[in-house]
């Protein structure tokens, strides 16, 4: 179940201790979680919060408010495009969905400074968002917590762009130029530990940190074993739906994680029936 990390070149191996030192010392240039995103997360987890508080919060950030309205009026959510206010959008779509949209919108690829890897980061982010949506549906089928799974899925690979950013910085500072492939290999090697550090720095719930750390070793997760398994499963569905040429249907249905989720063939088929609706939701949310 544990993923093999690709072999590194000599230069990348030389850079590796510097990366480890930076991670160990906590000197990561973790992008600040946009204030509004942090507040959206705490508001959505506060049982005493209400819709008006969320509307007020989103309205305080002009670009976010515009983004949420654009998504709310997209074909996926409002075929007639008839929503005229944020309050109406929240009423129509629900507080949790608006929270998800706002969170996905405020954590964006633009937060990361990794020249040359923009497309890669964009794809990583698309995969994370799709993973979040699939994980939520898997949670529903498995009768596990639906609410928290979106966040775990969305942030399961948050360490990747941060590692790339760090690799570029260190490569420049230490004058150890490395190839694109080496950078990606280092990303693979360190993304989990860095992801957990980012989630901790952003004050994310413990289950998010665990979903990142134990993503491909979910049997050893403690408090969030179910959540982590669902996120891993969601990530495979996401890979299949985004890149069927890389992960075809037969391979997907033969994956151990689907057996570990105890998803029978008909349940997998019912989930796959949601492919189009998940695709349109993802397009809307990343519009």
């Amino acid at each position: 179940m544990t993923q093999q990390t690709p072999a590194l070149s000599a230069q990348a191996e030389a850079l590796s201790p510097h990366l480890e030192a930076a991670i160990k010392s906590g000197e990561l240039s973790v992008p600040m979680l946009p204030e509004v995103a942090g507040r959206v997360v705490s508001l959505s987890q506060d049982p005493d919060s209400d819709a008006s508080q969320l509307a007020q919060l989103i309205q305080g950030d002009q670009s976010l408010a515009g983004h949420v309205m654009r998504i709310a009026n997209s074909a996926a959510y409002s075929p007639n495009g008839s929503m005229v206010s944020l309050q109406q959008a929240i009423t129509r779509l629900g507080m949790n969905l608006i929270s998800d949209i706002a969170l996905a919108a405020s954590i964006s690829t633009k937060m990361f400074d990794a020249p040359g890897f923009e497309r890669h980061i964009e794809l990583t982010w698309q995969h994370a968002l799709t993973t979040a949506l699939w994980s939520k549906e898997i949670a529903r089928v498995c009768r596990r917590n639906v609410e928290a799974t979106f966040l775990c899925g969305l942030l399961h690979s948050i360490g990747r762009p941060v590692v790339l950013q760090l690799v570029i910085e260190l490569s420049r500072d230490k004058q150890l130029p490395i190839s694109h492939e080496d950078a990606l290999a280092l990303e693979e090697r360190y993304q989990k530990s860095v992801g957990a550090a980012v989630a901790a720095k952003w004050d994310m719930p413990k289950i998010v940190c665990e979903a990142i750390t134990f993503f491909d070793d979910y049997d050893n997760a403690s408090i969030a074993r179910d959540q982590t398994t669902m996120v891993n499963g969601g990530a495979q569905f996401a890979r299949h739906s985004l890149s069927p040429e890389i992960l075809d249907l037969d391979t997907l249905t033969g994956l151990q994680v689907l057996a570990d989720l105890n998803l029978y063939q008909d349940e997998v088929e019912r989930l796959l029936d949601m492919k189009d609706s998940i695709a349109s939701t993802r397009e809307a949310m990343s519009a």
Partner: protein
Amino acid sequence: MIDASSEFDLVVIGSGPSGQKAAVQAAKAKKTVALIERDRVLGGACVHRGTIPSKTLRENALRVKHMRQNAELSNFVLAEDTEMATLIDRLDEVLLAHDNYMQKQIERNGIVRIHGRASFVDNEHISIEKVRGEAEVIKAKNIIIATGSFPRTPDNIPVDHEHVFDSDSILSMLYLPSSLTVLGGGVIASEYASIFQALGVKVTMIDRYPRPLGFLDSDLTDKFVHNFESSGGTWMGETTVSKVHWDGLANVITECEDGRVVKSEKLLCAAGRLANVSDLKIDNAGLKLNERGLIPVNDELCTEVSNIYASGDVIGPPSLASASMEQGRRASCNALGISVGQMNQMIPSGIYGIPELSSVGLSEEQARDKYDDIIVGKALFEEIARGQISGLQDGMLKLVCDGEGKKVLGVMVVGEGATELVHIGQMALLANADVDIFVESIFNFPTLAEAYRVAALAVIGQRSAASNAF
């Protein structure tokens, strides 16, 4: 591939309390046994979604309640953001220990465990669909269906496991909601309603019947409702729900036929459970469900097909783990031609609410229907030394006796320890003892068992008064 020529003396479908006991019983009789379970882990809903998780939550709810009662000593306040994981903190340990124990028992007894979804090919062949899709067929001389039950969802209740839960998904909540509506007045509804209320959640219970737990006498359920309401809960009896929907904002809206509307953060629909047979293709084996959606069986737990037996929730009431285990064992013996005595019908029922309720034998209402005359004796816990020491309120023990005030017909208990305490009465009932046994025997002091003596004295006092009247 499955070993042992894929042919077994007995195949048990379902590994809950009933299936497990059935399989072990047959293995002990040196028969070849296969146990089919659709989940990765053994134990069924009882272990993983029902009895054991809810009782673990209940234990912590009781601790919280006691800490609140002792607030003067500890100044205790439950943190507002308490996560459910904290409240069922030992659940993983409990489940792991149970799973290990069951696995060892299955292995030790040479039972072949099969992970997959069973369906009948005919009355002697079962097809097993593995989780990865491939299927195998095994042959069985005898088959026991012990697939349990799943929550019933009425058409007007949109269970989404996110805002509106059923009894299998309610414990997937990660945090305590501020408010919860519970639809139903049965055992599961009453248990969860009182547990969440004890944890400080504002709970509203809605049911079409005038009182919850209608199979118990009203003086017991009055105690339950009084305790629930004095903790801040709301009981709405004789109320029919017309519609439930999520308002898209922050509340589940429950609309009642009388025009009342209840808003809550989450909702639990506990509208009974149905036999879990949808994947079994029972018609291939010549079986049919009865009008209540259950598998009909005779006194031997045999279905209308002679080599197929059924036990546990799948055959209907009492739907108690305790009864299911014994049914499983008996179904196994009957299927294999092993002599077994008559099953004692005196099964105690236990409701693990806060407070606990338990009964065995006839209720007062049933006894009045059956006999012309009865004598009832009661003891209130607050009048018992142990009850006073422990500060127990809303506790009561009731003895129902025949018209002569001698033969014990039933025992009912509400209050702390009720599910344990009832067994004393059960033994007296099984021994056909006179009520005097509770007065002539000496119990530890101070204990709640003293309530038996007090209630018995109340019965004896009434019979003496009756005999003096002539």
